[in-house]
């Protein structure tokens, strides 16, 4: 049984995407999937908009581009939060990018561009997209587009699907050139049923054959494994690669970034996020540059930065992180900034109601993790398959006793990792 969470999206769902004023300082995050990025610039250098400022190599190669033109004023690689700090000169001088027309690109060129433009999964895991699409040996039968934005409050993907439909479909067309899937399915939640006809109408115009699968409004529907299960009926074990089963899943936000890369010659330097939450004054969907600090976003919507009477969350309310550093930036995987009231709930004793087991999408026993984490019993944590946990937070959400289950899961995973 998966659980239903109130979507809380109504306030932002229909707002049109507006561009947020650029920040005077940008903190370009150097973390990436598995391999950290190496800076290509030095302190004092002048960079142009769209210029590559950091990269990494290997299978999970990634790269980072400057979203503004300006001066590098600091590079921190050793700190807990490695970043490149750029001072914006507000001139937006772009770097020249010579490109061929989209229709004539070969498969390799498309993959190369995706890699060069630093496109990563925008759903949160930040998995490099070129690696995902690089599936020559495998036969992809099913291309699933993840339009299930199951986190409450967040509506950025919805806004893209509704307002940038053409861009989205063109990106699908382009990706299809590479992966050559037999079937394209759009997974959207039932609560967004109105999108179905809208998407189909536009797909017809562009002559793309897509199917729409309406998914139940449960959490976590947008998790890759849960989505695959809901669309195809196949239950893949955690850790298996969907491509091995002939499936590729892409997020709506990622596809939007791909469109920007090919049709506007713009690397992954901005993304669409939702700003919402009970304490936010100005809610809506915004286009912001990667690296924009959270404090700047708050300022723009007219809220002072403070952590005393509000909690700022980067990402969704279920899986996102509470932010206590004003310069924490938007990264390629964050779907929103939420401003919520401060937590005041207290922990009760566990009453063994078993709700956490009921709602766990991976069929695990979260209360056992809490227990064996206090005991530091690595053997038991392993036996109860803590590694299969996708950290969706459903157990912590449902727990009537407010046991900090996510905390023990994260700590337990660290224990397992170090063992």
């Amino acid at each position, binding site marked *: 049984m998966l659980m239903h969470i109130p979507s809380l999206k109504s306030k932002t769902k229909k707002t049109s995407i507006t561009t947020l004023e650029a920040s005077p300082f940008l903190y370009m995050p150097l973390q990436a999937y598995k391999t950290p990025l190496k800076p290509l610039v030095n302190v004092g250098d002048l960079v142009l908009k769209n210029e590559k400022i950091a990269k990494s190599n290997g299978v999970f190669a990634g790269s980072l581009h400057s979203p503004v033109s300006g001066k590098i004023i600091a590079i921190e690689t050793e700190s807990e939060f490695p970043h490149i700090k750029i001072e914006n000169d507000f001139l937006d001088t772009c770097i020249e990018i010579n490109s061929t027309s989209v229709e004539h690109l070969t498969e390799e060129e498309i993959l190369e561009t995706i890699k060069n433009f630093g496109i990563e999964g925008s759903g949160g895991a930040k998995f490099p997209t070129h690696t995902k699409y690089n599936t020559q040996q495998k036969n992809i039968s099913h291309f699933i587009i993840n339009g299930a934005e199951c986190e409450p409050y967040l509506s950025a993907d919805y806004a893209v699907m509704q307002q940038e439909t053409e861009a989205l479909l063109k990106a699908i067309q382009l990706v299809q050139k590479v992966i050559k899937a037999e079937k394209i399915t759009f997974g959207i939640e039932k609560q967004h049923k109105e999108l179905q006809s809208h998407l189909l109408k536009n797909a017809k115009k562009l002559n793309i054959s897509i199917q729409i699968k309406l998914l139940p409004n449960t959490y976590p529907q947008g998790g890759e494994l849960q989505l695959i299960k809901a669309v195809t009926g196949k239950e893949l074990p955690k850790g298996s690669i969907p491509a091995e089963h002939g499936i590729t899943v892409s997020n709506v936000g990622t596809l939007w970034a791909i469109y920007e890369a090919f049709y506007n010659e713009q690397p992954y330097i901005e993304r669409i996020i939702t700003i919402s939450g009970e304490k936010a004054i100005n809610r809506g969907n915004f286009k912001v540059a990667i690296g924009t600090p959270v404090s700047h976003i708050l300022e723009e919507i007219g809220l002072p930065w403070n952590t005393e009477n509000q909690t700022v969350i980067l990402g969704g309310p279920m899986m996102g992180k509470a932010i206590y550093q004003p310069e924490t930036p938007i990264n390629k995987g964050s779907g929103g900034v939420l401003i919520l009231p401060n937590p005041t709930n207290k922990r009760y*004793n566990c009453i063994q109601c078993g709700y956490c087991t009921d709602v766990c999408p991976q069929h695990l026993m979260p209360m056992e993790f809490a*227990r064996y984490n*206090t*005991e530091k019993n690595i053997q038991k944590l392993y036996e109860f398959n803590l590694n299969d946990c996708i950290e969706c937070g459903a157990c912590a959400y449902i727990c009537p006793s407010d046991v900090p289950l996510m905390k023990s899961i994260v700590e337990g995973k660290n224990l397992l990792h170090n063992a």
Partner: protein
Amino acid sequence: MVEYFSLFVRSIFIDNMIFAYFLGMCSYLAVSKNVKTAVGLGAAVIFVLTVTVPVNYLLDNYLLKSGALSWLGPEYATIDLSFLSFIMFIAVVASMVQLVEMIVEKFAPALYGSLGIFLPLIAVNCAILGGSLFMQQKDFPNVGMAATYGLGSGIGWFLAILAIAAIREKITYSNVPAPLRGLGITFIITGLMAIGFMSFMGIKI
């Protein structure tokens, strides 16, 4: 057949060694910290009881009881050796325990290690001697009944230690008041469990 069944059920639930007579408490309290070792010790107790009760029954009936030696000849019919029954019973129990110890050490060294001193101490576990003495008192008509009784008592003891071990594992992280931690709370649990087992008191089968 019916009387075997009824004796079997009685000895497990109604005359439960732990909850009706509170016998064999020392190892019950000491080795019930986790289910695995509890199961090991419980199995050992089942084995020892199932073997010693019928063996002692034979000893009692053909050696010790007054008139038990009449099979040697009419002149022995008046001899009553029952004053020897404690020492004889204990000797049988001790030798059986030795046997179990050797078997466990050979085939389950991990269990042997975790049972520690309590395995040889089964020899002086009052539930074991108690089983034999109850057998003597109950005056069973044949050896089969005695074996049934031994098996039943053993299973009853096994169930008790299994249940308390599972409960103690569950409450490891309970916020028990400091003075009650450890044995104190175990005694309270045993008492409460005995209330649960009261449901069988008075059943007539």
